[in-house]
């Protein structure tokens, strides 16, 4: 039960890659943590097999992703581009999709009603607020009950109460979750998940959430370096056990570059 990425390059134009040689082995619940623009969404699209341009290998349960066809229940995601443009109400679109991928519509309805609001079901997707769109997309991915569920920024535009409710739902899901986010507030709730850091198209890790929260960000190669991250600018960033700005104090990894500038 693994998803293996071997030297994966992916992007949108030939020769211009966003992912620049990603190697990962996903064996259980995983969170990919990185600032905006680091390539998290591209990684999700590539894992779903819908990236525009790709090099390298992705093996899901021993099968090359390019040769997977007609495998309902294997993988699902919350990316909006996976869903066809439709003028039909959310409930009809959800029924159609969940029927095709072998999901659980009743669970979808219950989840959307509980975390969002019941009226969502009768509305068209494009009429929803950004937060409600996130809830619908997350609910569709979770209700698929797929073996692997990919969740790209599943808390985007959600208010604090809904963020926590959605996180609980994700943690309790029996699927193997692969989640990408730029926020660090959730790390304390992720127990035994594997955490990968993603910066400028490369992934680093895995670490456990507790390990990561104990690390500090430094521009200098001080003692106790656990990870070193190469930047496009030519410099390097070090995650150390001893000196620097604690990761637990950076609520969003978008601030990583600001922290480095301050140092």
């Amino acid at each position, binding site marked *: 039960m693994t998803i293996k990425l071997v030297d994966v390059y992916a992007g949108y134009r030939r020769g211009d890659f966003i992912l620049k040689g990603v190697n990962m082995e996903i064996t259980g619940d995983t969170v990919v943590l990185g600032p905006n623009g680091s390539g998290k969404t591209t990684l999700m699209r590539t894992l779903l097999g819908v990236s525009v341009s790709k090099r390298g290998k992705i093996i899901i349960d021993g099968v090359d992703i390019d040769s*997977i066809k007609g495998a309902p229940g294997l993988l699902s995601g919350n990316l909006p581009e996976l869903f066809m443009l439709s003028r039909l109400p959310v409930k009809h679109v959800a029924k159609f999709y969940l029927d095709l*991928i072998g999901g659980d519509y009743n669970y979808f309805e219950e989840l959307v009603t509980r975390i969002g609001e019941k009226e969502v079901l009768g509305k068209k997707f494009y009429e929803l607020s950004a937060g409600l769109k996130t809830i619908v997309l997350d609910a569709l991915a979770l209700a698929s009950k797929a073996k692997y569920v990919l969740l790209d920024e599943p808390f985007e535009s959600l208010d604090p109460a809904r963020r926590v409710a959605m996180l609980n739902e994700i943690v309790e899901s029996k699927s193997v979750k692969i989640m990408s986010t730029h926020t660090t507030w959730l790390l304390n709730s992720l127990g035994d998940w594997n955490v990968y850091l993603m910066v400028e198209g490369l992934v680093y890790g895995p670490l456990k959430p507790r390990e990561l929260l104990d690390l500090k960000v430094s521009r200098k190669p001080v003692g106790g370096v656990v990870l070193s991250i190469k930047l496009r600018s030519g410099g390097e960033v070090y995650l150390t056990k001893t000196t620097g700005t604690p990761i637990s104090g950076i609520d969003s990894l978008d601030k990583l570059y600001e922290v480095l500038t301050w140092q």
Partner: protein
Amino acid sequence: MWFWAVAFMAFWLFMGAYVYGARVTMEEFIKQFPEGTPRAIIDEAWSKFILHYTAGWYGSIALFSMSAVTIGLVQYIYYSTIPIRYLTKYSKATTTKFYTGFTLAAITGIVVVIIVLLVTTILLYSYRFYGADFHDYRGLPVPVFKNLIVPENPIGVLATTIASGVLMYFISSTVALFVVVLRKPRALGFASFLPYILSFGLGMAGLIATGGRIHFSPFNIILLLNYHYYANATLVLDKPVTAMWRSEIEGSSQVLEPTTLWLVLLGWITLFAVISMALFKKQRGVNLEEIISL
């Protein structure tokens, strides 16, 4: 779609009946006959001319309307490339099922649009050329037409509409997938109007300007077959459609059999189907950023 394919086309049908057809009157028509021609012959020629005139307008408007449907189809197929790739991998849906569904949806949409335009043509042109008496029915004026200009071969019109729907679907699919394969999302706006522009250009040329090989273009074939089945008209290769009705009187050495047109139409359908399937296999989809940037 409803505006371009129905409302705009109904406007042109009205123009054909009342503006371009303003001088199509019995008084003008009768001047072509030598004095003393029996009235029965003139009446028969008049009804034949009116049938051909109506059939010519219906044929061209049906063509333009179907190509208007392709504007929406091209965009829908373009935006569906990623969901289809995802769903064919991780659901029980297959590419064949999706494209069969799309084709049937396109045919259904086109048949509905064409029925609306066909009824509009019959009522509008029957009223314009034969008139109607209005009877009071519960306070509403209900027209009773003196004569209805209906298609001579409605089954032929229906068969042409269905085959044209298939052709238009594959033309749309080819155009949309070319945009995807070439990774030129900004060309989508122009590309989606390409079948519409071509059908206007080629259709109008074949309708009023010239005959010859232009009649074998995928767009002109639709016009010709509809014209033929509506008026039971003889088709000739060397004349534009508006001049074809005379060939029944004057004769022509270049008579075009509908069977030949059907074979060419099937050839076009096969060609566009093969190209669109090859492009579908080659395409890798478009990404959301490119769609958003449009």
